[in-house]
């Protein structure tokens, strides 16, 4: 479109046009993402009633859950915490162990691990 030598006016046109185009393209992509998310969520809502029924049925036996022997997990958790804190396991009381459902992205996990170190 332009040759090797351009005037300052042409350079300004190149800068303004290109930067505007970058913004327009990325803004359009961001709205495209919104649209996709909307369509996907709408599709999921339609499927939800079918999924909800078996989920309720499955949840019913939960209160009757048997007590599991957690001795091994308690020992391992206590040893890991003691090793991290640099103290003896005698000084640690494990009151409960709960498995946390992982909802974070891998980036978030990495940042958490980095900040622990």
């Amino acid at each position, binding site marked *: *479109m332009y040759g*090797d030598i351009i005037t300052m006016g042409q350079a300004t046109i190149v800068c303004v046009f290109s930067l505007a185009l970058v913004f327009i393209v990325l803004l359009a*992509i*961001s709205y*495209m*993402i919104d649209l996709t*998310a909307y369509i996907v969520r709408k599709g999921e809502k339609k499927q939800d009633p079918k999924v909800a029924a078996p989920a309720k049925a499955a949840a019913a036996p939960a209160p009757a859950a048997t007590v599991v022997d957690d001795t091994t997990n308690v020992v391992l958790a206590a040893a890991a915490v003691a090793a991290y804190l640099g103290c003896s396991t005698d000084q640690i009381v494990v009151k409960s162990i709960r498995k946390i459902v992982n909802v974070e992205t891998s*980036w*978030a996990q990495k940042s958490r691990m980095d900040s622990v170190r």
Partner: protein
Amino acid sequence: MLEILQGFWESTGLNALFQCNTELFGVNLPGELIMIAIACLFLYLAIHKGYEPYLLIPIAFGMLLVNLPLAGLMASPTETENGGLLYYLYLGTDLGIYPPLIFLCIGAGTDFGPLLANPRSLLLGAAAQLGIFVTFFGAILLGFTAPEAASIGIIGGADGPTALYLTTKLAPHLLGAIAIAAYSYMALVPVIQPPIIRLLTTPKERVIKMEQLRQVSKAEKIVFPIAVTLFTVLLLPSAGSLIGMLMLGNLIKESGRVPNLVSAIQDSLMYIISIFLGMTVGAKASAEMFLRPETLKIIVLGVIAFGMGTAGGVLLGKVMCKLSGGKINPMIGAAGVSAVPMAARVVQKEGQKYNPANFLLMHAMGPNVAGVIGSAVAAGCLLLFFQ
């Protein structure tokens, strides 16, 4: 006997190494010797200091090889003789094959989840491209031709493969200097960005905690690369190679159907291409092409490009912070320069300095990957004007 010894000495590279045949600022210097010393310095930085070793080792060794006198590793073929090894390997860079292949590998290793969860962060990726165009303007003022200025400006995108791709198309004679400036500044992102972030943000803005991002469904992640490719390449065909390969790599990963391909692309292919690309880029840094006053100008313009890109992202971040009622931490705008994931990690570290309970990494990854798309689009624009 003396004549034989003299003939032998004159035929060796050692003799040629000490010839003062490169003129810089009116002084004749032993160019190859200086370039070998620079290559050894880069090897030291890469191996001992760990600065971008995966790229800097091949680049520095390519530089070393091409500056060995009489070895002819970059020699063009003649009617009677084949060309040098690096000449043939360089065809992959010259023909624009390696940089898009690197983009394929980057795509296969990129999680667009944070971007999909917060689509407006794409705007921060766009604002951070400001450095490209400010530097383009500056380079024109300093007397570079328009294609050269565009190639120098793209350093501000902080995206190695994009910079190499554009430079091979517009100003291949500047490839060595631009590649070294781009990758050096990328390694220096943790040094360059924090002062600019601190200068442009208030302590109150730096401690802003952002809400946790929503979870993104698999369907959204699969549709994204297809939709972006269709839209962007139809609008800007010149960005097709880079955007197409980036999105193909990402689709291969997100499809979840071809784990072996993902593993091959993320590991083997990435490293193989990095060796070829690095070596051949280094091979363009011969004494006659590198030891010029222009190289110094490129190095200065490169740091301006990085600084302006960071500033552009942070300033738009401040605007978005005001518009959102203080829900967006403006520091994440600094991650809009690509340099994945280094720029996002800088934002995370800066955020934690002011609020140890603040986890900005996933929020910064949105603008960070948006910067990759933004710089590829900017490169497409510049190709449209100057190719």
